[in-house]
Each structure stands twice: as C-alpha cells, then as structure tokens.
C-alpha cells in the first residue's frame, strides 16, 4: 500500500514535469535564438542556449524594420477594441438579463447563433463592406467589426443574471435612475466578467492574423502579427531578428494572462462546466 502510494506520487509528478518541459522548451529556444548570431542558428551541435551572445538581432529589429510602429498600432487597436467590447457587452448583457423588450427572444437567438458561427462565413462580405466604407489600412477596420462577439454578450448576460433583482429594485425605490443603477450597482458587481471579456478581446486583437492580413497592406499600418510574419521577405532580416520580434510581442499578453489565469479559465468554461 505504501509503496503503491509512493509510486503514484512519483509518476504523477513525472507526467506533469515532462509535459511542462515539452511546453517550455520551444519558448526557451525562441529566447536563445533571439540572442544568437545567425551563423550559429544554422550550425552543429544544436543547442538550446547561445554559445555566442549577441544583441545584433534586437538592433536589426529596431533599426531595419518598423517594429516600434507595429507595436504601437497593435496596442492602440487592441486597447480601443477592448474598451468598446467591454462597454457594449456589459450594456447589452444587462438588457438581456434584466429587462423585457420587443423581439428580445429573437435577438438573443441571433446572439446564440453567431456564438457558434465561424468567422469565415462572413469574411468575404465583411471585406467588401470594409472596402466600401473606405476602412482598408485604417484602425477602424480592426477595432469595430469584431468588437462585440456573441460570446461576450452571452458571458455578460450570465454574470448579470446572478445579480439579485432585489438589489436593483432597492436602488429604484431609493430614486436612482436606470443609468446610475447600471453604473453604480451592476458594473461593480460583474467586474470579474468584464475582466474576462476585456482580456479575451485584447488577446483576440493581439493574436489575430487572417483579418489584418486582408485589410492592412500598408507597412506603417501593420500589426505585430503581420509584421513578424512578413519580416523575412522585404526586410531581409535574419531569423534571429524574427525570434526577437516574436519574443517581445509575446511578453505583454503573457503577463496579462498569467496574472488573470484563474478568472479566464472560469470564464471560458462557464458554459462547459454548468452544462
């Protein structure tokens, strides 16, 4: 019995440790590659860490590409889209959770349908629409069209449903206006949900590739994802510089996510666990 317990304790830890190792090694490789001279990347023996340490890749990244501009573009669009997404989904989620209105069931059904609809079903027409609006190579094309997703509305509705009606009615009896009830009672109570919506929206913009690839063609309008992917061709920079760019682009999102990890998983599985 005792030996069996020892054995299972050791095997559990080994399984998890091997999994962690496999997960982390490619990141370490990226880190190492960003500090390596190009010649060493393509030489034997293959090592995880650099034998010769150089900052040339980072210098090339900042002097020979528009990396800083891409970083700015990505931060700006991701930030504004996140702001829009949290406001709109909180308000709409509140309407769906706590009020009755004309065609409510129909609109909510629409939200649920788009929840499961893949992006490629509307991609072509959305592209045409954005071209006709004159939004190509414009921040608006990144910020507005996907600002509200069915998922964020659904998530906020779920969170707001758990706010007790008595609380809202008490505020009404005290003479609070509907707007102030929303801002002062509902919003503070559903902060965790807003956090999840904000992070998912920020990450979606930060990591998206297909949509920016279609609507952005000017260099100075590129986002990080497009910039990094196209670096090899026109700039003739070396692979180490791409790794440097990839690494720096990952840091903000990594920090945000690791800090908020528990909330995010709770938010993502809200439908799954409750079934």
């Amino acid at each position, binding site marked *: 019995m005792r030996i069996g317990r020892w054995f299972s304790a050791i095997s559990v830890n080994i399984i998890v440790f091997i999994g962690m190792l496999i997960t982390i090694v490619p990141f370490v490789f990226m880190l190492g590659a960003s500090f390596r001279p190009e010649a060493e990347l393509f030489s034997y023996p293959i090592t995880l860490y650099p034998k010769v340490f150089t900052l040339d890749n980072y210098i090339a990244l900042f002097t020979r590409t528009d990396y800083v501009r891409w970083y700015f573009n990505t931060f700006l669009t991701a930030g504004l889209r996140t702001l829009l997404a949290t406001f709109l989904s909180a*308000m709409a989620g509140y309407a769906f959770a706590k009020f009755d209105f004309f065609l409510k069931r129909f609109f909510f059904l629409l939200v649920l349908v788009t929840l499961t609809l893949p992006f490629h079903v509307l991609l072509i027409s959305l592209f045409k629409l954005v071209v006709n609006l004159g939004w190509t190579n414009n921040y608006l094309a990144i910020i507005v069209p996907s600002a509200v997703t069915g998922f964020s509305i659904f998530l906020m509705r779920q969170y707001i449903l758990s706010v007790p009606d008595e609380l809202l009615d008490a505020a009404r009896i005290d003479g609070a206006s509907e707007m102030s009830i929303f801002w002062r009672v509902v919003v503070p109570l559903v902060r965790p949900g807003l956090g999840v919506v904000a992070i998912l929206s920020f990450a979606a913009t930060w*990591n998206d590739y297909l949509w920016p690839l279609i609507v952005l063609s000017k260099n100075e309008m590129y986002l990080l994802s497009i910039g990094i992917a196209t670096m090899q061709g026109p700039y003739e920079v070396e692979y180490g510089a791409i790794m440097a760019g990839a690494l720096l682009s990952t840091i903000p*999102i990594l920090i945000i996510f690791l800090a908020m990890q528990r909330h995010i998983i709770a938010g993502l599985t809200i439908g*799954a*666990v*409750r*079934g």
Partner: protein
Amino acid sequence: MESAQSAVVNVIPPTAAKISWWGRNERKLIPYVFLAPFLIIFLVFTVYPVIDSFIMSLHDIDSLDAGEYIGLDNYIRLVTKDARFGKSLVNATVFGLATVFLQLPLALALALALNSPVLRFRTLARMTFFMPYITSAVVIAMIFRMVFEERYGLLNGMLGSVGIEPIPWLRSADWAMPALILVGLWIWVGSNALFFLAGLQTIPEELKEAARIDGASEWSVFRNITFPLLRPVTIFVITLGIIGSFSLFTQSFLLFNGGSGPRDSVLMPVAYLYERGFNNFKLGYAAAVGYLLTLIVVAVTVVQLLLFRIWGKD
C-alpha cells in the same frame, strides 16, 4: 434624487430636455438604450455580412462589383469538380480526428495528474500549460519553423541523439501533416487539460470517497463517477476542437511559408478560401467555400452532439 437626475442628464443628453417625459417612460425605454449600440454594430458587421455572403456565393464575382447571378453553380462546382477543396476537407478531417483521439486522452490524463493531491509545483504547472494557448499563432509558427528545420532544427537534433535519421518535416508530403498535428498537440493538450481540470474540480470528493469506502477500485471510480460527470466538459472540448480543426489557418499557412505544404498536404479549407478570394479575387466562389464549410461544421457538430445524447442515455 438630485444626483440621480443629474446622472441622467450627463449620460443621455438628447432626452434630457424632457426629464418628466423620460421619467415616466424610463423603465420601458431603457433596455433599448442599453441594447442599441451593440445591436447597430451587430446588425451591420455580423448579421448583414452573413446574409450578404450567401448572396455573393450565388454570383460569379471577379472584383468588388455585384457580378453575375449563377444560382447554385459555385456550390455544384465545389462539390463535384473541385478536387482541391475536397483535399482541404480531408486534411481538416484528419487534423480533427487527431484532435479527438490524440489530444483528448492526453489532456484528460494530464488533468487527472494536475488534480492529484500529491502534485508539487501546481501553480507553476497551470501557468506553463496555459502559455501555448495564449501565444499568437504567428509566433508559434515562427518558432516551429525553426524546431522542424531539417538539418539544424531542435527536433531532428534531439531525434538524432537517439540515432534517428533527420526527418524532412516541412518538405515531405508524408511528414507535413504529422508536423502540423504535433504543433496542435503542443498548443492544445495543456489548455484542454486545464478545461478538464476545471470540470474535475466541480466533482465532489465525497462522492468518490463514498464509492471507495464501498470497495470500488480507482479505475471503476474513474469509469463510473469521474468520466460520466466530465461529460459537459468533454462535449465542450470536442466541439471546440472540431470547429478549430475546420477553421485552422494561421499555423498551417505560416508553418509552410504562406503555402499549403508539399502537394497540398496541409491545405486547409480556410487557406483555400483565402487563396480563392484574395489571390484569385474570385469573391463569389470564396464566399461559397465559406458557406459550405460552415454547413459542414454545423452538421459534424450536430452529429457529435447526438452521439453524446446517446452516450448519456445508457
């Protein structure tokens, strides 16, 4: 009261002039105020494009003008004549099957290990397994192009140290799909394990303890209590996996340098849509690819959910 009214004035200027009228109708009108901004964006940028894409798919369009109405011709051509579209569906299906039959068991095993009370460094493990999930697909593709590099790549280097000959991961039609599946495993096993873990933590420990006291083995506790109670999470993970397999684009596209791999071995449906729409500017045809693809995904998901309903009954 004073402050409440000024809040209304601040937030809704257009109606502020008629406070008394607004005061009388506030309860009735406020849901529309909350709903309107979302609804406008939603109708213009989601509902309209979904409908318009379908209309476009019924036309032969070479540029951005309306094109010529051709009925269901695009769909008929896709189903009967377009071998590359068929190839892309086969590729997505292979990737999807790998997701269900390789990713899920690995993720479940990892989740059970993560849920074990004897595990050390628990928080660090959770954070680590979340990392690939949040890293951008572009970054992942760039890393794995180096990892899979034939002569100087990390993977062949490691395989070489145990005497395995270098594998042409990205250059051979036979190895391209396994390479893509490996990347998929690397990205999603950890995050799916965390979803399973969230499910495992909702199962009351007393339930399992009671079964153990009644003499049930660990395997039968898992088989009869844990696994059935994980059903919602399993459905969630499989559904996401199937939708993800049929929407996969960035990883395959960039891992193979903006292409579809040797002999279209990793041509994915969305990459095909992109090629048709934005390289050949056949927007109508591309819209048809998008619609047909969505129909297939919906059909597969419905079948899968029905299978789960049958599983739930016995």
